[in-house]
């Protein structure tokens, strides 16, 4: 297989907030598109195809809401495709944009989406509907407690504590202060996290992400297109991979320890494939910044282990040592991550966008020094779908 030379040349994000009552969903998506196109230095007419990142229709209240947005975001009479893997949707959308160009059919693809979940009365009610109506839904599972199950197993297996979870929340909040797009911009202490009210034990209020509204877009292009444009700030896509795990979480909870719900096995496999494609053999040394899809503190702990940033079970202690701080060995979520903004449809896309900004050297106040190779992840379903994207400033 010949190497693919495909890069991100433009990034656009709106500020993530609780609600946006001044615009409808298509208009919100267009805001991000306009910013990304301007960043890339191109116009709507230069776009060959569009990939739309939209997760749960029920959160928008319109079935197939991407079709409502299509014309407004420049899709009129263009190839247009929507992907949906729950929280991982944005990662899947970037990969789909990559495959559009890698197929040889297209040179410039707009990947974008928008989220207006602020208009649903209760998001967790919708998220309960992702579970099986025959065997599981009536047992009151939702997106919070599916992660509680993960936390409990991680604690039991490795001795991780609620204190370790709190460290993740504190760091994310601190980083978010530097990010103008973050939704939650208020520092907290470990004590405040530990004393916040219990939502689903052991997860407390500050272990959880907010519900955010906002849009995100990236422009992806072929080497030929980039050369013609004479573009210098490029985040090259070095590796893309995803992995789908089993639906029923109980299948990941036997005593074998294999494919364990504590361990994000799907992320481990996706990372392995993406690293291989990117030629990365030692992620600890070669990855210089990571944007991880972790809507709950516990998800990040399992994720850094699966990504090979530390050994299994050592994420808690690594957090104590500051390994993942913005000036640490492998800075994780310098943007503040999902704990400070979670517009589900575009959350994983924003991870890629933030990672791209890092390797382009355009992350401003949240820039990690000398970050030249970055990894961005997505996670969706019952900790079931994982996407991994490796980016670099080098072609």
């Amino acid at each position, binding site marked *: 297989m010949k190497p693919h030379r495909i890069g991100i040349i433009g990034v656009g994000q709106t500020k993530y907030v609780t609600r946006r009552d001044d615009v409808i969903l298509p208009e919100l998506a267009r805001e991000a598109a306009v910013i990304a196109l301007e960043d890339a230095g191109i116009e709507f007419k230069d776009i060959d195809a569009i990939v739309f990142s939209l997760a749960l229709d029920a959160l928008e209240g319109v079935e197939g809401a991407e079709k409502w947005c299509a014309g407004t975001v420049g899709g009129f009479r263009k190839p247009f495709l929507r992907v949906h893997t729950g929280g991982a949707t944005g990662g899947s959308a970037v990969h789909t944009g990559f495959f559009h160009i890698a197929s040889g059919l297209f040179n410039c693809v707009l990947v974008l989406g928008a989220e207006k979940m602020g208009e649903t009365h209760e998001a967790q009610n919708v998220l309960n509907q992702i579970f099986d109506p025959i065997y599981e839904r009536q047992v009151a599972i939702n997106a919070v407690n599916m992660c509680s199950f993960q936390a409990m197993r991680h604690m039991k297996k490795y001795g991780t504590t609620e204190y370790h979870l709190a460290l993740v929340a504190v760091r994310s909040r601190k980083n978010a202060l530097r990010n103008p797009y973050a939704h939650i911009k208020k520092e907290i202490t470990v004590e405040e996290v530990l004393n916040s009210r*219990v939502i689903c*034990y052991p997860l407390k209020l500050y272990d959880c992400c907010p519900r955010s509204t906002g849009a995100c877009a990236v422009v992806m292009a072929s080497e030929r297109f980039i050369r013609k444009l004479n573009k210098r700030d490029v985040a090259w896509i070095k590796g893309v991979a995803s992995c789908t795990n089993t639906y029923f979480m109980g299948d990941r909870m036997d005593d074998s320890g294999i494919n364990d719900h504590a361990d994000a096995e799907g992320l481990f496999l996706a990372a392995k494939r993406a690293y291989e494609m990117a030629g990365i053999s030692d992620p600890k040394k070669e990855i210089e910044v990571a944007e991880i899809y972790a809507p709950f503190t516990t998800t990040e702990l399992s994720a850094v282990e699966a990504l090979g940033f530390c050994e299994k079970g050592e994420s808690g202690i690594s957090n104590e040592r500051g390994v993942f701080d913005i000036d640490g060995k492998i800075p994780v979520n310098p943007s503040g991550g999902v704990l400070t903004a979670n517009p589900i449809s575009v959350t994983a896309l924003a991870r890629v966008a933030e990672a791209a900004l890092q390797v382009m050297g355009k992350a401003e106040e949240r820039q990690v020094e000398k970050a030249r190779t970055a990894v961005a992840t997505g996670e969706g379903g019952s900790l079931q779908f994982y996407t991994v994207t490796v980016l670099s400033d080098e072609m």
Partner: protein
Amino acid sequence: MKDDLIFIAQRWDIEFKHAAGETASTFFKAIMQRREILGRLCPKCKRVLLPPRSFCERCFVETSEWVKVGGEGKIQSFTIVYEKFEGLPPPPYAIAYVLLDGASTAMVNFVKGLDLNNLDQAIKKIKIGAKVKVAFKRKREGRITDFWYELV
């Protein structure tokens, strides 16, 4: 126009009749008629799947026979919910994945019969590895909530 915007209230109210299929129907009937929990055996990897499925996604073959699993098992993971979520029961309640004796995969359900008002007291009793037994509703109607777990 900052303060004079219009909001259109809408509900998604779609009724579904999900076909449980022959496999899940057999499982629910065994609960209704005989208070038995049945799993499905994969002929290739020999796992006993619970909840039962008609095929094994790993080996990609049909599961071959019904296996009655034990009425007791071990908690593999749990949570206690203290937040009121729309559409879900009033808190607090505990839910757990339990590996029933003879099964290869864990099945989720409520854990009842435990005072949850004091978290610290509750988590002294409910733990990963703790033994539970299956308890059945008196009037069963072919739903997963026809049974629940209780600590032994």
